[in-house]
Structure formats: structure tokens, C-alpha cells
């Protein structure tokens, strides 16, 4: 089992997360795409960790998870406020600020 296969899976998921930003418009889904990207990074970190420092990598992964959790919490709270104003969550239709 070659280790860099893991890397490639991580890369694919990362890119899918990025692409999600262009084909989805629901804010919640966009946030999920960010989660995909962060997870992909985590997986890559673990793979690199096998080479450089197994324990460290695991510690960092745990820290990144907390970051993701905090981000989701604030993001979802923001979405509640957005929903109160717009009654929808479609990012394309929020264009009051432009120019």
C-alpha cells in the first residue's frame, strides 16, 4: 500500500471542496465544502506525519478539528441572522453590496 495514495485521496477531496464553491449556492453546503477542505488537509497532515513525527501530526490534527468546530459554530449562527434578513440562504442573491 503506497502511502501517497492517501495523499491523492486527500488532494481529490480538497479539490472537490474547492469546486463545491462554484457549483453550490446554499451557504450551508458551502460551509460543508470548507469542512471537506479542512479534512483533506488533516489527512495529508497525517500522511506527512508518518514521515516526520507521528505523534505531532496527531496532535495537530486534533487542534485543527477544534478550529473547524469553532468555525462551524460561528458560521451557523451567522446564517441564522442572514436568514432573518433574507429568508433564504442563497449566496448568489445577496448582492446589496457591490461595485
Amino acid at each position: 500500500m503506497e502511502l501517497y495514495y492517501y495523499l491523492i485521496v486527500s488532494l481529490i477531496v480538497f479539490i472537490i471542496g474547492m469546486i463545491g464553491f462554484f457549483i453550490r449556492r446554499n451557504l450551508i453546503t458551502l460551509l460543508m465544502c470548507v469542512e471537506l477542505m479542512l479534512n483533506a488537509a488533516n489527512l495529508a497532515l497525517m500522511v506527512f506525519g508518518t514521515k516526520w513525527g507521528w505523534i505531532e501530526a496527531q496532535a495537530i490534527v486534533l487542534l485543527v478539528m477544534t478550529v473547524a468546530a469553532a468555525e462551524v459554530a460561528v458560521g451557523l449562527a451567522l446564517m441564522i441572522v442572514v436568514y432573518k434578513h433574507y429568508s433564504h440562504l442563497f449566496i448568489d442573491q445577496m448582492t446589496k453590496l457591490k461595485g
Partner: protein
Amino acid sequence: MWGLAGLIIIFPLLGLLINLFIGNRLSRKWIGVIACGSVALSCLATIVFAVLFHFNYPAEGSIEANWYQWIVSGSFVVDFGFRIDWLSLVMALTVSFVGFLIHVYSVGYMWEDPGYRRYFIYLNLFMMMMLMLVMANNLGLLFVGWEGVGLCSYLLIGFWFEKHSASEAGKKAFIVNRIGDFGFLLGMLLIYREFGSLNFNVIEANMGEHVASQIILGIALLLFCGAAGKSAQFPLHVWLPDAMEGPTPVSALIHAATMVTAGVYMVSRMGFLYEQSPYALMIVTGIGLFTAFFAATMAVVNKDFKRVLAYSTISQLGYMFAACGAGAYVAAIFHLITHAFFKALLFMGSGSVMHALGGELNIEKMGGVKEKMKWTALTFVIASLAISGIIPFAGFWSKDAILAAVWHKYGPVIWIIGIVTAILTAFYIFRLVFEVFYSERRVEEKTWDHAHESPPAMIRPMMILALFSIIIGFVGLPFKRFNLIERALATVLPVAHGTEVSVANEIILMIIVLAGALFSIYLAFTFYMKKRNYLDTLLASFKKIHHVLINKYFVDEIYHKIIIAPLWYVSDKFLYKIIDVFMIDGSVDGIAHISRGTGKYLRKIQSGNTRSYAFAIVIGMLLIFIYYFWKIHKG
């Protein structure tokens, strides 16, 4: 003690602050007194320091008075300091003296204006900045004054902002000047890189070290770019005629006597650098003389009183640059001083006439104004004689010095351009004199009834200036022993050696200049007094040569046909319409237009759609990746 020289700058600042903060509680009279008084005090201070300097003359010829170190970081030091030497003193004296007279004149001129206080605040700010410019001992501080006067000029051109043309003119002045400043700033950066300082003394001391001549040339040209912007040299001259939208005293002070000469001052100040690069000198003279000629031809055809004077200013500044390029910095500064007096006077005269005729500027609707305005007419004629270079008025001596220098440095062919320009100068200025003051009256009756001589607050400064227009030239008589100005300035400015003019040559040159000027005054007299419709018939009859031939002014006709009429066509149709209006003006407006247009276009990309924002991020990321990819594969 010398640190007190800063007072010269502090006084206008005080006046400005008083008027700014408590001016709204003061009467108009007191506002005027404070504004004029502060400038008078700095003029007095300058005189005091000049006297002190004369009696405590230091061996090295200049004194540095540092207040404090403005910027210190490692090797980069910029002082807030003044340099006291004859150049800065002479400049400060001219600026503060002419400035004072114009302040007094302004009290009369602006008395009725609602923006009276604001006007004097700007004017005092201008005086402060201009004096800082001439007193600074390093390029950094000079640049502070440089930008400061630019800002004031911008604010004052647009002073009557209700007029659309005024705010447009302000914008144009601003844009063009920014182009010049850009050169200046880059020049400063290069100077610091090469010489390790911005202080004039240090730069001069390090000059001897081997710096590549291309770099010297580059610095010289970049600085000249700044000078050309400020002093309205081709092709950055377009803003000055439009700047006449401002109040007339502003035109007199800023756009004739002082600010626009800053470029000449700076080039003279950096003369030691220009001397290192013959190419730079050639370019300076070339552009100077071309501008002088070019602007003079414009002045011949323009019908707007103040614009004629504006073109004349451009032309005279061209002379000064020609002198700098010829290595005759003393002559340039000398002409700068005499010009400050008579050109300020000419503008004040025009302001006086405007004041009387209800703001009329078209010289074809004037004529015979002398009847009602004796003093204005008299002083205007004196100034005209001075600018035309009639002996013994001030302009004669300074112009002669410049032409002699050009002759000796670049030979007769270049010199002829100077002579032609001098002849044109006499022609257009006397065209104004005759058209406005002496020819038959073409003023509407209603305005004529209201016409009156200006109040004493305006006339008295004009008289003083007239007096100086007559006598100021004597400080620079072309004979070594009597040439006070050269003896003073030669301690500061580089003086070309081995080109001393023999007395005989000098006199011959003088006679040629004088004869040319007199001849063209005669021509102007013929056209605008004796035969008013002469020119019209001439132009009409251009096709009918036989009609011309039977005309009894046969010789004159030939002269016209060969010289004046083609010149007329060239300057009006080609130089003015195509080069000036279409190409240069157009490109300046074009820059502004394109910038705004591009901005509006770029705004559309900011569509408000967040996905397109993310798209931009991805594009940037991809480009960075491609760069690295390319780099890896290159090895």
C-alpha cells in the same frame, strides 16, 4: 542665531493660524491686516538676515541652520533645516516682497468676495510653503514646499469652484503637476541611492565620486521632469493657461511671479549636478527655447487678456531654462527676479482692467481704457517695456544676459530662436497695450459708464512694482564690476568660465536685441493703432496677391506675407489647435478619462456575487502555481 531664519517661514504660518481659528470673529480689515502683516514681517526678517549675512559672510559661502533632525534612521537623515546663502536669500526676498505687494493688492481685489478669509488662508499657506521651498537645505524639505505650493495652487485655481471651468482647470493643473512630481520623486530616490543624502552640500561634496554618467543624466532628466511640470514647460505646460481661472492676484503671485519659477530655482540649485551632464544641459536648453518660442507664438494669436499673459509667462520661463541649460544660472535667476516684478505688474494691470470692466477678458472688446485708468495704463506700459527688453528697463538686462550666454554656449543658430522669441514677445505684449489701452474704444456703453480707476489698495502696489520694474535691472549690469547679482550668486551657483564676453560683442548683441524689440513694437503700433483692420485685410487678401501688390505698404506686406502671416497660420492652426489642444490637452484629459473609465469597468467585476470573489482567489492561486511549476521545470 541663524536658526531664527525659520521666522521667515513661521510668520505666514502664524497669520494663517490666526485667520483660520479666530478669523471668523475678525472684520475684513483685520483679516487683511493679519495676512499682509505676516508676509511683511517675513519680508523684513529676510532683509534683516540678508544684512546680517552680508556682514558675517562665512568662508564657505553658506550657512546651514538645522532646527532638528526630521527623519533619522540609520544612514538616512533628513534635517528640518534651512540653508542661508545668497541664492536662497535673494529668492526669499523676491518672493516675500512681491508676495507682500500682491497681498495688499488682493485686499482691494477680493474685498467683495464671500470667500475673503478662505482666500487669505490659502494665500498665507502658499507663502509659507514657497518660502520653505526656497530656504530648504535639502531636497526632502524642498519637496515638502514643492508639493505644498502645488496644493495651494490647486486650491486657488479652483477658488471660484461654482464655475465649472475653474474646477476643471484645477483638476488639470493637479494631474499635470502629478506627472512632474512623479519624476521629481524618482529623481530624489535615485539621488539618495547614489549620493547617500538629500542635503545639497553633501550631494555636492559626493559629486566628485564616480557615478556613472548615465545615472547623472537620468537624475537630471527626472528632476527636470518635475521642474517642467511645475514651471509649465513643454509638454507639461497645458495647465498654466487654464490656471487663469483663479482670481487674478493668484495668477500674479503663483502662476507668474513665484511658484512657477520653482522649477528654475530647483534646476539652478542642482546646477552642480546638471553641469556634470552635457546632454542634460542640451535637453534643458532645447526644451526651454522651444517652449519659449512655442508659447510666444500662442500669445500672438490668443484673444484672452490673461491667457496671453499666461503664455508669455511660459515663454519667459522657457528663457530661464534656456539660460540654465547654457550654464548661465546667474542669468536665469536674474531673469527670474526681474520677471517676478514686471509679470506680477502685468497681471495686476490685467486684474485692474477686469475689475473696472466687470470681468471682461476679451481684448477685442476693450480699447481706449487709458482714458479712465491712467495709472493702470502707465504702470502697464512700464511693465511692457520691461518685458520687451527696452533699455534701461529691467527685462533688458536680464534677457540680454541670457541671450549672451546662449550665444556663447550654443552658437548663433540656437541664439536666433531666442532673438525671434524676443521679437515676438515685444509684439504680443504691445499688441495688448495698444488693443486694451490706446486703440479706439470697443467697450459696451453700459460697462464703460461703470468703469473707474481701481482703489488705492490696488494701485499703490502697482506703482511700487513699476518702480522696481525700472530699477531692478541695475543690480545686474553686464559689466563685471557693476554686476552685483553675479557677484552674490557666483558664490553659490556654478559659473561658466572662459566664456567672458568682450565688451564690443556684448554691445553688438544688445543692439540687435534692442533693434528687434523696437521694430516689433513699431509693427504692433502699425497693426493695432494706425491701421486697425490691417490684419483682417491682410488675411483676407492672402489669396489675392495682386491686391496686396498695389497696396502702398508694400514692404510691410512682404514682411507679413513671408513672416507674420505664415506664422499666424502655423501658430493658430497647427501649434495651437493640433499640438496644444488636440495632442497635449487631449492626452491629459485622456489620462483622466481613461483612468475613470477603467475604474468604472473594473467596478463591474465586483459584482457582489461571492462565487465570483472565490473565482478570483482561484485564478490568483492558479497563476502562482503556474509560476512555480514553470520555475521547477526550468530547473
